[in-house]
């Protein structure tokens, strides 16, 4: 600790340069914290027994549908509590920019499964009893200034009506909210019965089933039982936990973990060059000071360690500030981008790996100048000056 004044003196020598270097590291670690937090959600291993809801999808493609008759057979499996289903409606509300998911579902079973969607009994009743009923999340209602009783036009792009037109009209009969995950309020649910009767194709089919279990520990067994039940049929199934399904769904856009890690690798490679260059320049400018340290008795190793510690301090300050800002921004980010995959969070493994990267960056960027400082010959240093 007594050498601390030397480190502080070195960092204070050119405050602007030190500040800018630390700032670039802060940005890099902020990016690291944010991107890793999102990437973890997409890439973490999922345990089948960790969820009390299963999703049954077509084995070969998420766009393939399955007969609705499967519902009764799934319901008959021991340990299954409720079965609902949902379809991807697609469609556009006025303009393509107004994108939000629209899901035809069986109202009662669906709301019984998704207890986290809070809705008044009157609205729920209206949803169950209104043929072309729709319920919307609170956020969406506020966004489009809707109110219960409004008729919402949706232009179908996957599904047309039986008369060949594609203008669907749904009556907004209720509003739900999800306090734990407000991002879920940016979707609407439609009455499946009307959707299935009115559409011009694929009648009697569903996109996937949602199965609520009596006991989440039974998940692996029930998943296997469902898939075995429909093995060798025309529409074979693949059963996931809800989270694994969302992860698989997201992976359709590409390997998100790889994309994010590639961006981070590019960022840190650049930062490595920036920090390395700054450290080298800083040490070159202080050749005579380093020579003075050696003259008054500092050993070659001590001088080398001083340079390394200087590099380490810069990188760690950058890491702590960057990850600190990430932690501050995380609740807002989590609310903005939270997914059915799970909550986006800055967990301890990200913090630890961030600090690890800071140490490695410090070592690599500090190594050339530290080695130069160690090898510096006092006589040569003073002769050059």
């Amino acid at each position: 600790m007594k050498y601390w004044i030397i480190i502080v003196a070195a960092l204070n020598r050119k405050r602007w340069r030190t500040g800018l270097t630390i700032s670039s590291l802060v940005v890099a670690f902020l990016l690291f914290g944010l991107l890793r937090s999102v990437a973890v959600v997409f890439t973490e291993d999922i345990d089948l027994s960790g969820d009390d809801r299963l999703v049954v999808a077509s084995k070969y493609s998420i766009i393939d549908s399955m007969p609705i008759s499967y519902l009764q057979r799934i319901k008959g499996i021991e340990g299954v509590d409720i079965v609902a289903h949902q379809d991807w409606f697609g469609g556009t509300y006025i303009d393509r920019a107004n994108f939000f998911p629209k899901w035809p579902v069986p109202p009662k079973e669906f709301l019984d499964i998704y207890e986290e969607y809070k809705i008044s009994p009157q609205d729920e009743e209206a949803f169950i009893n209104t043929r072309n009923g729709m319920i919307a999340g609170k956020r969406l209602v506020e966004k489009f200034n809707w109110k219960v009783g409004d008729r919402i036009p949706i232009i179908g792009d996957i599904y047309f009506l039986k008369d060949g037109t594609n203008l669907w009209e749904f009556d907004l009969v209720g509003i739900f909210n999800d306090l734990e995950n407000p991002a879920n309020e940016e979707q609407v649910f439609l009455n499946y019965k009307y959707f299935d009767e009115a559409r011009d194709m694929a009648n009697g089919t569903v996109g996937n089933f949602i199965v609520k279990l009596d006991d989440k520990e039974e998940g692996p067994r029930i998943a296997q039982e469902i898939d075995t039940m429909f093995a060798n049929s025309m529409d074979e199934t693949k059963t996931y936990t809800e989270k694994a399904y969302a992860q698989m769904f997201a992976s359709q856009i590409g390997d998100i973990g790889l994309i994010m890690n590639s961006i981070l690798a590019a960022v840190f490679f650049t930062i490595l060059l920036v920090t390395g260059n700054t450290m080298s320049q800083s040490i070159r400018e202080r050749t005579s000071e380093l020579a003075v340290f050696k003259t008054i008795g500092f050993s070659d190793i001590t001088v080398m360690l001083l340079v390394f510690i200087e590099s380490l301090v810069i990188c760690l300050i950058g890491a702590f500030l960057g990850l600190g800002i990430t932690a501050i921004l995380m609740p807002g980010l989590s609310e903005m981008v939270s997914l059915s995959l799970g909550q986006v969070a800055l967990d301890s493994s990200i913090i630890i790996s961030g600090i690890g990267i800071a140490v490695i960056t410090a070592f690599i960027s500090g190594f050339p100048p530290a080695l130069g400082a160690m090898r510096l010959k006092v006589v040569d240093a003073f002769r050059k000056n």
Partner: protein
Amino acid sequence: MSEILVDVKNLSKEYKRGGETLVVLKDLNLEIPKEDFLALMGPSGSGKSTLLNLIGGLDTPSSGSVSINGERIDQMNSKQLSNWRASNVGFIFQFYNLLPVLTAQKNIELPLLLTNLSSSQRKQHVETALNIVGLSDRSGHKPSELSGGQQQRVAIARALVSDPDILVCDEPTGDLDRDTATEILNLLKSLNQDHGKTILMVTHDPAAADSAKRSLHLDKGKLAS
């Protein structure tokens, strides 16, 4: 006769430049008694600074020996030389070489960071050194807030603070005006006479050499009387 502090025997120093060998010092012999104040003079390239560096343990000879207080420093490795310099020799340079962002007090404290002294003990030593060089009232000032003479006094205090036997000075007044140079030379004389420090000073300035107890001339790597 005073006890010999510095004993240089058959000292030679050569540098390789490309394929050429440059002989800077050749079979040089020199004895410096304790409490001596010796000025080394000579033209540029005569080997003065090289000799100073060898005696100060900053460089190693090509051949010959350098003993300080009976210790063969020419046989020490880099780490041993660092340790030896920390407690046995103080360096004073022409351009002071102070750390610009540290106060006078912190600059002077630097050599003491290598010791096991506590913070309060280090502070006490620094105050003593500042008293000796007459800068007690400027301890909190940074080098940029001090005159050239004051900066050199801080550098002298830094050289003194670990209480070395020998002070090695390379053109200590080379960057100062005459009056300030005289003040610095008087301070060095006082350190020699009142504090018993052995001083070896390289200078081009005959007036500076006059402050020393004796002068030696070096020419083409050899001592001339």
